[in-house]
């Protein structure tokens, strides 16, 4: 497709004003001229509509953005209730807590004036978790048998039961985390409704797990030079298998399009690490020398840290953070923002096109700042991160066109009966 070479995707303005819709790489004639539906008088509980900006240069209906009207205070009230129940039930309430948070977030996000609906249930997550637990128990049993009959009381018996188990879990854990990621996505989409229509995800979770494991392995053994290939090929099944009822998403990305930018990032990254390493080394060496400390003195200082030592270590941590923060992370965000723009712009759902002008700075806020918020608040800042993320999506995702409502039919597939067990077990558990 010729529009893969859209001038916009390659040179996204870093300072794009959020109210200026970026151009779309898809041919404008693909758009129908149907205006997005607009109720005659807007009742108070409808999501506030985006004031329609001037039509994009190719004509067609005005672009819109999702609207998120959730409030941080309300989200906190729900989150704190969840934490309190977690403490009371030693964590067993998390399935229901997570479900409630999703219901809140989904319900406050609207696309084309209609809110999403999350209809998952806590007990479905509990059952999924119990299944995963069963799976692990079966695996432990199998490993015990292997140990008992293969390793036990043999010459190579320096291999303990726990060694065998940890090793085997490390081996199956990686693929299973990917399988769980995909299956979790399928579960969440199958419980998501828009205009009463169920979303869904086709494809095989095990296939995705095998693909992801293979690609990541090959990428790691080739010094991460295949990253664009991995990113595009792992994005494809997740995007192209997604559907809203009978409306499928389409993904038209190709790794070749983004290789030029990636190679630039790759070598800049190496350079940045060298510069950062030299800078930190020089700073640490210089300070120790200027204080006239031997390595023994240093060890003594670390063992019985006085106030000065603690302050000094904090100063160093801060210094290292500045060096890395200035050099490495923005570079990574530069690449990640580019990748996300590429992936979003090359996805569509029927005649509905997507685009985003997310900037390096916004990606920094999403990847780095959000991480720091969770880290520095020991997790209590999590709702802030969620809120920021939803606000970012609603500010940065542009939707061109509107689907013909009567052409999207309900899908007969109700999705899996339970969800996310593997995700809970092997992956970082999120919302």
């Amino acid at each position, binding site marked *: 497709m010729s529009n893969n070479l859209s001038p916009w995707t390659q040179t996204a303005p870093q300072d794009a004003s959020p109210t200026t819709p970026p151009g779309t790489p898809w041919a404008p004639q693909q758009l129908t001229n149907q205006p997005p539906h607009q109720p005659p008088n807007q009742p108070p509980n409808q999501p506030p509509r985006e004031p329609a900006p001037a039509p994009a240069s190719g004509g067609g209906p005005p672009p819109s953005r999702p609207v998120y009207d959730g409030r941080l205070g309300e989200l906190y009230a729900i989150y704190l209730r969840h934490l309190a129940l977690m403490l009371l039930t030693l964590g067993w309430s998390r399935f229901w807590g997570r479900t409630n948070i999703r219901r809140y977030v989904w319900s406050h996000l609207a696309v084309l004036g*209609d809110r999403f609906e999350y209809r998952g249930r806590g007990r479905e997550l509990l059952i999924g978790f119990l299944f995963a637990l069963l799976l692990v128990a079966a695996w432990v049993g199998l490993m015990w048998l292997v140990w008992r009959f293969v390793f036990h009381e043999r010459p190579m018996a320096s*291999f303990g039961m726990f060694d065998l188990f940890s090793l085997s879990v490390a081996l199956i854990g990686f693929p299973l985390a990917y399988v769980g990621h995909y299956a979790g996505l399928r579960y969440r989409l199958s419980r998501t409704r828009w205009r009463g229509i169920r979303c869904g995800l086709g494809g095989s979770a095990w296939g995705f797990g095998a693909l992801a494991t293979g690609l990541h392995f090959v990428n790691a053994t080739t010094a991460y030079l295949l990253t664009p290939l991995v990113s595009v090929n792992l994005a494809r099944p997740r995007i192209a298998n997604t559907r809203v009822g009978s409306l499928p998403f389409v993904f038209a990305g190709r790794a070749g399009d983004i290789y030029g930018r990636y190679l630039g990032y790759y070598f800049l990254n190496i350079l940045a690490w060298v510069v950062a390493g030299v800078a930190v080394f020089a700073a640490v060496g210089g300070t120790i020398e200027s204080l006239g400390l031997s390595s023994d003195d240093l060890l003594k200082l670390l063992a019985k840290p006085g106030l000065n030592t603690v302050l000094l270590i904090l100063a160093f941590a801060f210094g290292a953070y500045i060096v890395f923060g200035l050099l490495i992370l923005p570079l990574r965000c530069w690449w990640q923002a580019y990748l996300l723009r590429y992936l979003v712009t090359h996805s569509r759902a029927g005649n509905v096109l997507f685009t985003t002008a997310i900037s390096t700075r916004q990606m920094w806020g999403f990847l780095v700042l959000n991480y720091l918020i969770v880290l520095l608040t020991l997790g209590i800042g999590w709702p802030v991160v969620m809120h920021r993320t939803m606000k970012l999506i609603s500010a940065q995702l542009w939707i061109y066109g509107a689907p013909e409502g009567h052409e999207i039919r309900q899908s007969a597939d109700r999705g899996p009966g339970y969800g996310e067990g593997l995700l809970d077990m092997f992956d970082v558990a999120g919302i």
Partner: protein
Amino acid sequence: MADTAATPARYYDGETAEVHHVAVRVTTQELVIYRPTGAEIVARWPIGEVVVLGDVEHEVVPPVVRRGSDARLIVDDPQLRANLVSLVPSLRPLLPQPAAVGRRIAMFSTAIVAMVGIFWGVIEYGTEYAVPFLPHSLQAQLGETVLDDLLADKEMCEGEPGLAAINRLANDLAKEAGYPHEITVHIVEGGPVNAFTLPGGILVFYSDLIDQAKNSSQVAGVLAHEIGHVVHYHPTKGLIRAYGTDLLLKLVSGGYSEIASTVGGGGGLLLALRNGRAAEREADSTGIDLLERRGLRADGVSSFFEQLMEKEPKDAAAAAGIWSSHPPTAERIAATKRPPTGKPAFTDAEWKALRNVCK
């Protein structure tokens, strides 16, 4: 039956993604959903089959559905919602509750702080009192599992008279302390010069410790120290505390943040080490006390530490400071210093057998 105000609601038919802008009226038996222009009826739902999904705390407009159908009625207008609720009691979940977000936040925060405090207290002090009541078989099972794993590839010393001697003294000392269960001492061939205690009264000595001891009272001193750990249930308490702190951190960080748990885990480790140093002091003093109560020579602990200090003049524990699992050795010597008086803990024959336990 009175008509409700003809304010738009939205109706999704559950078959397509078409949006119908509708009004709703309630008859004696039905919810009638119709288009305000032309009054064309879109759907008639028997009132007995109408339910609300979700609640207003989590959802802006909880959808009204007919049981068993994918169709949804979204009543955007609060006035219409209020009217519907007054006519159809099963639609009560649609009524907006007073927000009072601030009060909810304050309430749940207080609950969290209180529960963290209670949880902490249970971990920190509860274990102190509760662990002795934990079934011994459970603790022994735990200890044996760890033992099997630790010693999977180690050579054990099987000299029966030697093992009998050290087990005899161990059980004498435990009985002196009123510990009601059997103690089992295992001896592993080789080093380091060390001994440790597992849950359920399981002791492990390394033979290098016995080889390098100058006299039997040094081995007896170390043994008494380990019995001190046993009678205070230190290994089980340590395990429960480590597990409890870890769980607490996971719960408080919402389980969302691996990184938060890692940072917290560092704090948990420091705490475990602090508890560890306190436990060592307690075991030292109890060990000495037990030896003295039985009229045995109690100079073994301090002389053994002195011997270690001579070999390794740098006090590793003192150097490691807050990162050490044991108190500084010099401090322990000062605290356990006793005169070389009293009966020997082992008979000459026992001591000889113990020396040869690995041969």
